[in-house]
Protein backbone atom coordinates (compact mmCIF):
# COMPACT_ATOMS: atom_id res chain seq x y z
CA UNK A 1 0.00 0.00 0.00
CA UNK A 2 1.41 3.34 -1.01
CA UNK A 3 0.55 6.24 1.24
CA UNK A 4 0.61 9.99 0.70
CA UNK A 5 2.18 11.69 3.72
CA UNK A 6 0.66 14.98 4.84
CA UNK A 7 3.48 17.57 4.92
CA UNK A 8 3.02 21.16 6.08
CA UNK A 9 5.65 23.89 6.52
CA UNK A 10 3.99 26.98 7.92
CA UNK A 11 4.32 29.93 10.28
CA UNK A 12 0.77 29.43 11.60
CA UNK A 13 0.06 27.28 14.62
CA UNK A 14 -1.49 23.84 14.10
CA UNK A 15 -4.29 21.91 15.77
CA UNK A 16 -2.84 18.57 16.88
CA UNK A 17 -6.29 17.24 17.77
CA UNK A 18 -7.64 17.92 14.29
CA UNK A 19 -4.57 16.29 12.73
CA UNK A 20 -5.01 13.20 14.92
CA UNK A 21 -8.72 13.04 14.11
CA UNK A 22 -7.82 13.04 10.40
CA UNK A 23 -5.39 10.15 10.97
CA UNK A 24 -8.02 8.23 12.94
CA UNK A 25 -10.53 8.56 10.11
CA UNK A 26 -9.57 5.05 9.44
CA UNK A 27 -9.73 2.41 6.78
CA UNK A 28 -10.30 0.06 9.72
CA UNK A 29 -6.72 -1.19 9.43
CA UNK A 30 -5.19 1.34 11.80
CA UNK A 31 -4.80 0.12 15.36
CA UNK A 32 -2.11 2.50 16.58
CA UNK A 33 -1.38 6.21 16.19
CA UNK A 34 1.84 7.52 17.74
CA UNK A 35 2.48 11.25 17.77
CA UNK A 36 4.93 13.85 18.97
CA UNK A 37 4.69 17.58 19.62
CA UNK A 38 7.80 19.72 20.13
CA UNK A 39 7.35 22.92 22.16
CA UNK A 40 9.53 25.96 22.88
CA UNK A 41 10.99 25.44 26.35
CA UNK A 42 11.52 28.54 28.47
CA UNK A 43 15.03 27.87 29.69
CA UNK A 44 16.35 30.59 32.01
CA UNK A 45 15.12 33.80 30.48
CA UNK A 46 14.51 32.61 26.94
CA UNK A 47 11.69 34.67 25.39
CA UNK A 48 11.26 33.03 22.00
CA UNK A 49 12.86 31.04 19.23
CA UNK A 50 13.00 32.30 15.67
CA UNK A 51 13.13 29.49 13.15
CA UNK A 52 14.67 30.18 9.78
CA UNK A 53 14.27 27.60 7.04
CA UNK A 54 15.17 26.97 3.39
CA UNK A 55 11.93 27.34 1.45
CA UNK A 56 11.68 24.76 -1.29
CA UNK A 57 14.26 22.45 0.19
CA UNK A 58 12.38 22.10 3.48
CA UNK A 59 9.25 20.56 2.05
CA UNK A 60 11.30 18.38 -0.30
CA UNK A 61 13.40 17.11 2.62
CA UNK A 62 10.35 16.43 4.80
CA UNK A 63 8.79 14.47 1.96
CA UNK A 64 11.99 12.43 1.52
CA UNK A 65 12.12 11.70 5.26
CA UNK A 66 8.45 10.61 5.27
CA UNK A 67 9.02 8.37 2.24
CA UNK A 68 11.94 6.69 4.02
CA UNK A 69 9.70 5.97 7.03
CA UNK A 70 6.93 4.63 4.79
CA UNK A 71 9.41 2.32 3.06
CA UNK A 72 10.74 1.02 6.35
CA UNK A 73 7.58 0.47 8.43
CA UNK A 74 4.07 -0.70 7.46
CA UNK A 75 2.34 2.66 7.97
CA UNK A 76 -1.17 3.63 6.95
CA UNK A 77 -0.58 7.39 7.40
CA UNK A 78 2.11 9.97 8.22
CA UNK A 79 1.68 13.62 9.14
CA UNK A 80 4.62 16.04 9.48
CA UNK A 81 4.12 19.70 10.37
CA UNK A 82 7.00 22.11 11.05
CA UNK A 83 6.60 25.78 11.85
CA UNK A 84 8.98 28.66 11.09
CA UNK A 85 9.16 32.28 12.21
CA UNK A 86 9.06 33.67 15.75
CA UNK A 87 7.72 31.18 18.32
CA UNK A 88 7.34 32.32 21.94
CA UNK A 89 7.96 30.06 24.94
CA UNK A 90 5.25 27.38 25.09
CA UNK A 91 4.53 27.53 21.34
CA UNK A 92 4.25 24.37 19.27
CA UNK A 93 7.18 23.89 16.84
CA UNK A 94 6.74 20.49 15.27
CA UNK A 95 4.16 17.72 14.96
CA UNK A 96 4.80 14.16 13.82
CA UNK A 97 2.17 11.43 13.72
CA UNK A 98 2.32 7.90 12.36
CA UNK A 99 -0.49 5.35 12.00
CA UNK A 100 -0.05 1.61 11.70
CA UNK A 101 -1.80 -1.67 12.44
CA UNK A 102 0.48 -2.23 15.45
CA UNK A 103 1.99 0.01 18.08
CA UNK A 104 5.66 -0.91 17.67
CA UNK A 105 5.78 0.25 14.04
CA UNK A 106 3.92 3.47 14.87
CA UNK A 107 6.26 4.30 17.78
CA UNK A 108 9.46 3.45 15.92
CA UNK A 109 8.51 5.40 12.82
CA UNK A 110 7.53 8.42 14.92
CA UNK A 111 10.87 8.43 16.76
CA UNK A 112 12.76 7.86 13.52
CA UNK A 113 11.02 10.84 11.91
CA UNK A 114 11.86 13.12 14.86
CA UNK A 115 15.49 12.00 14.94
CA UNK A 116 15.76 12.49 11.21
CA UNK A 117 14.06 15.92 11.25
CA UNK A 118 16.61 17.04 13.83
CA UNK A 119 19.55 16.21 11.60
CA UNK A 120 18.24 16.62 8.02
CA UNK A 121 15.44 19.19 7.84
CA UNK A 122 16.88 22.60 6.90
CA UNK A 123 15.75 24.64 9.90
CA UNK A 124 17.91 26.84 12.12
CA UNK A 125 16.85 28.05 15.55
CA UNK A 126 17.85 31.42 16.91
CA UNK A 127 17.25 32.05 20.61
CA UNK A 128 15.75 35.42 21.58
CA UNK A 129 16.55 36.28 25.19
CA UNK A 130 14.61 38.46 27.58
CA UNK A 131 17.58 40.89 27.75
CA UNK A 132 17.29 41.52 23.99
CA UNK A 133 20.28 39.43 22.94
CA UNK A 134 20.06 36.58 20.49
CA UNK A 135 22.10 33.49 19.70
CA UNK A 136 22.04 30.76 17.05
CA UNK A 137 21.46 27.32 18.57
CA UNK A 138 24.29 24.88 17.92
CA UNK A 139 23.59 21.39 16.63
CA UNK A 140 23.91 18.71 19.29
CA UNK A 141 26.03 15.63 18.72
CA UNK A 142 23.40 13.71 20.72
CA UNK A 143 20.99 14.40 17.85
CA UNK A 144 23.47 12.94 15.37
CA UNK A 145 23.83 9.88 17.60
CA UNK A 146 20.05 9.54 17.78
CA UNK A 147 19.76 9.65 14.00
CA UNK A 148 22.70 7.30 13.53
CA UNK A 149 21.02 4.54 15.52
CA UNK A 150 18.58 4.04 12.62
CA UNK A 151 21.51 3.02 10.38
CA UNK A 152 20.29 4.76 7.28
CA UNK A 153 22.83 4.36 4.50
CA UNK A 154 24.42 7.63 3.40
CA UNK A 155 22.12 8.97 0.72
CA UNK A 156 24.29 11.58 -0.92
CA UNK A 157 23.03 13.49 2.08
CA UNK A 158 26.34 12.43 3.43
CA UNK A 159 28.76 15.20 4.09
CA UNK A 160 28.99 14.67 7.23
CA UNK A 161 28.68 15.86 10.44
CA UNK A 162 32.37 16.12 11.01
Amino acid sequence: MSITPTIKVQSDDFDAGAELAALNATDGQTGAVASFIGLVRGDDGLAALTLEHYPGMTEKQLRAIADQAAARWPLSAITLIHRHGRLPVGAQIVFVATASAHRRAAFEACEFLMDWLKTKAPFWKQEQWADGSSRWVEAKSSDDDAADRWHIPADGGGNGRA
Partner: protein
Amino acid sequence: MVQVLYFAWLKSRTGCAEEQVSPPAGVHTVRDLACWLREQSSGHAEALADLAVIRAAVDQEHVSLDSPLGDAREVAFFPPVTGG
Protein backbone atom coordinates in the same frame (compact mmCIF):
# COMPACT_ATOMS: atom_id res chain seq x y z
CA MET B 1 25.89 31.36 -13.29
CA VAL B 2 25.09 29.78 -9.92
CA GLN B 3 22.64 31.04 -7.32
CA VAL B 4 24.32 30.87 -3.90
CA LEU B 5 22.22 30.94 -0.69
CA TYR B 6 23.36 31.53 2.90
CA PHE B 7 21.42 30.67 6.04
CA ALA B 8 21.54 31.42 9.77
CA TRP B 9 24.82 33.02 10.92
CA LEU B 10 26.42 32.62 7.48
CA LYS B 11 23.83 35.06 6.14
CA SER B 12 24.63 37.69 8.79
CA ARG B 13 28.34 37.39 8.01
CA THR B 14 28.16 37.52 4.21
CA GLY B 15 25.55 40.27 4.51
CA CYS B 16 23.33 38.67 1.87
CA ALA B 17 20.76 35.88 1.76
CA GLU B 18 21.54 35.01 -1.86
CA GLU B 19 23.61 36.10 -4.81
CA GLN B 20 24.31 35.17 -8.42
CA VAL B 21 27.96 34.27 -9.02
CA SER B 22 30.05 33.13 -11.98
CA PRO B 23 32.89 31.04 -10.57
CA PRO B 24 35.98 30.62 -12.76
CA ALA B 25 36.93 27.42 -14.59
CA GLY B 26 39.00 25.93 -11.77
CA VAL B 27 35.99 25.61 -9.43
CA HIS B 28 34.86 21.98 -9.64
CA THR B 29 33.51 21.00 -6.22
CA VAL B 30 31.34 22.61 -3.57
CA ARG B 31 34.49 23.07 -1.50
CA ASP B 32 36.20 24.85 -4.43
CA LEU B 33 33.21 27.18 -4.64
CA ALA B 34 33.37 27.97 -0.91
CA CYS B 35 37.11 28.73 -1.16
CA TRP B 36 36.56 31.00 -4.15
CA LEU B 37 33.67 32.79 -2.40
CA ARG B 38 35.95 33.49 0.59
CA GLU B 39 37.98 35.77 -1.68
CA GLN B 40 34.98 37.90 -2.66
CA SER B 41 34.69 39.99 0.54
CA SER B 42 35.83 40.06 4.16
CA GLY B 43 32.27 39.08 5.13
CA HIS B 44 32.43 36.02 2.89
CA ALA B 45 35.87 35.19 4.28
CA GLU B 46 34.46 35.32 7.81
CA ALA B 47 31.32 33.33 6.98
CA LEU B 48 33.21 30.53 5.23
CA ALA B 49 36.35 30.58 7.40
CA ASP B 50 35.87 27.16 9.00
CA LEU B 51 34.46 24.70 6.52
CA ALA B 52 34.36 21.97 9.19
CA VAL B 53 31.25 23.60 10.66
CA ILE B 54 29.56 24.26 7.34
CA ARG B 55 27.08 22.07 5.47
CA ALA B 56 25.95 22.43 1.87
CA ALA B 57 23.12 21.57 -0.46
CA VAL B 58 23.18 21.47 -4.26
CA ASP B 59 19.84 22.01 -5.95
CA GLN B 60 18.17 21.44 -2.56
CA GLU B 61 19.80 18.10 -1.75
CA HIS B 62 22.30 17.64 1.09
CA VAL B 63 25.78 17.00 -0.35
CA SER B 64 29.31 16.64 0.95
CA LEU B 65 31.69 19.54 0.33
CA ASP B 66 33.66 17.32 -2.02
CA SER B 67 30.71 16.73 -4.33
CA PRO B 68 31.11 18.04 -7.86
CA LEU B 69 29.17 21.17 -8.71
CA GLY B 70 28.20 19.75 -12.09
CA ASP B 71 25.60 22.01 -13.63
CA ALA B 72 24.20 23.12 -10.28
CA ARG B 73 21.69 25.95 -10.47
CA GLU B 74 21.50 26.55 -6.70
CA VAL B 75 24.10 25.98 -3.98
CA ALA B 76 23.35 26.66 -0.31
CA PHE B 77 25.77 27.00 2.60
CA PHE B 78 24.56 26.73 6.19
CA PRO B 79 25.48 25.56 9.69
CA PRO B 80 24.37 22.09 10.85
CA VAL B 81 20.57 22.11 11.03
CA THR B 82 18.75 22.59 14.35
CA GLY B 83 15.08 22.00 13.54
CA GLY B 84 12.61 19.59 15.13
